[in-house]
């Protein structure tokens, strides 16, 4: 899951991919706004064919939280 997802998530957050670890905190980024939420929903739909509930997405604080959300959706 990490490879392409991290790469494209880094692009939409406008940060180098090396920074996208499980501890990466979205709320500390100025780029984490309503438009980034839309882009993240689209990215996850494109890569994993999953439509995340925006309230769940907004509750995710780190990239690790995002991955856990996806794992729960797959379970």
């Amino acid at each position: 899951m990490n490879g392409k997802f991290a790469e494209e998530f880094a692009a939409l957050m406008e940060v180098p991919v090396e920074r996208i670890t499980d501890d990466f905190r979205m709320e500390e980024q100025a780029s984490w706004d309503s438009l980034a939420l839309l882009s993240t929903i689209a990215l996850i739909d494109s890569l994993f064919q999953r439509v995340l509930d925006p309230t769940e997405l907004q509750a995710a604080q780190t990239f690790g939280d995002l991955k856990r959300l996806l794992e729960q959706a797959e379970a």
Partner: protein
Amino acid sequence: MGFRKLQHARVVGVAAAVPDNVRSNDDLEGDPVEIARTAKLCGIEARYVAPDGMCASDLCQRAAEDLLKGIGWKRDSIDLLIFLSQTPDYVVPATSCVLQHRLGLSPQCAAFDMSLGCSGYLYGLMVAFGMVAPQGIRRVLLLVGDTPSKMVSPHDVAANVLFGDAGSATAIEYDESAGESYFVAGTDGVGGRSLIIPAGGFRTPCNADTARRKPHPVDRVLRSEEDLYMDGSAVFSLTLNHVPALIDSLASTSGWSVGSVDHWLFHQANRFMLDHFARKLSIAPDRMLSNIDRFGNTSPPSIPLLMVSEDFQSRCKGAGQRYGMVGFGVGFSWAGALLSGASPVTLPLARHA
């Protein structure tokens, strides 16, 4: 999901009108960085905005005048007038009744309003197609328009970037030789909270408090309860949950594959969503029409506005064309149609002063 297979109806012609007043991104008030970022994602460079005193009905009336002249319909031959909008002239009476008089239609013409947003054109078309018959209602004038720019707070940058105003007129006629048409529609009312003007109806009438603009608890934008609130990510999520299923349903009930449809006309929600759907549904870019860059999101008339574009006219010549139309939005409501046959007459876009 509601499904209708309809025969013996066809779209004879389409016209559309926008206000004469164009507003570019440079003309918008607010943080230039936020405007630029939103405009880029939405793919919008300009939109037409109705001045004070100009209503959706005025734009629809202008489109209807052009259309009736263009297709040569006599006014007393129109059996039904439908006005579909979320920005009517009055609470009462129905704007369709006002327009029957203003257009000089016969007193024998039935008239009623429908209230829907971005899915509305397809609902209006489905009702019109369903009502025509060999006797009785043979000709329908479907007027679809909105002035969403009047619904939004001046402090709401995203909404001011996104929305534009327009009106349209579509002529539908009973035709024994018309091909089959397929309509699919659905609703998920839980989404109503994601795109709403909370006050101004009878649930919460307007008062001094509902008119007061204050920071919204979700996005901190200065907005009153009489202004439109939109939770963009919730609307997008609903759209992703329902529109692909709508396309699947249209394809399975008609037997037409997505690739066999010559022209897809999606509600012009925003560039980002349109690109996402084109990729997800494997619709070739040259089959997915778009004009959102010049008009923004005009809500229900966005599809007829596409139909009067030079792009549509140059692509859709001759008989035997297949058209797919998809609308989705406020409600949450969605509908789609697959039509075939000769291209309708389209009139040049009018700019109404």
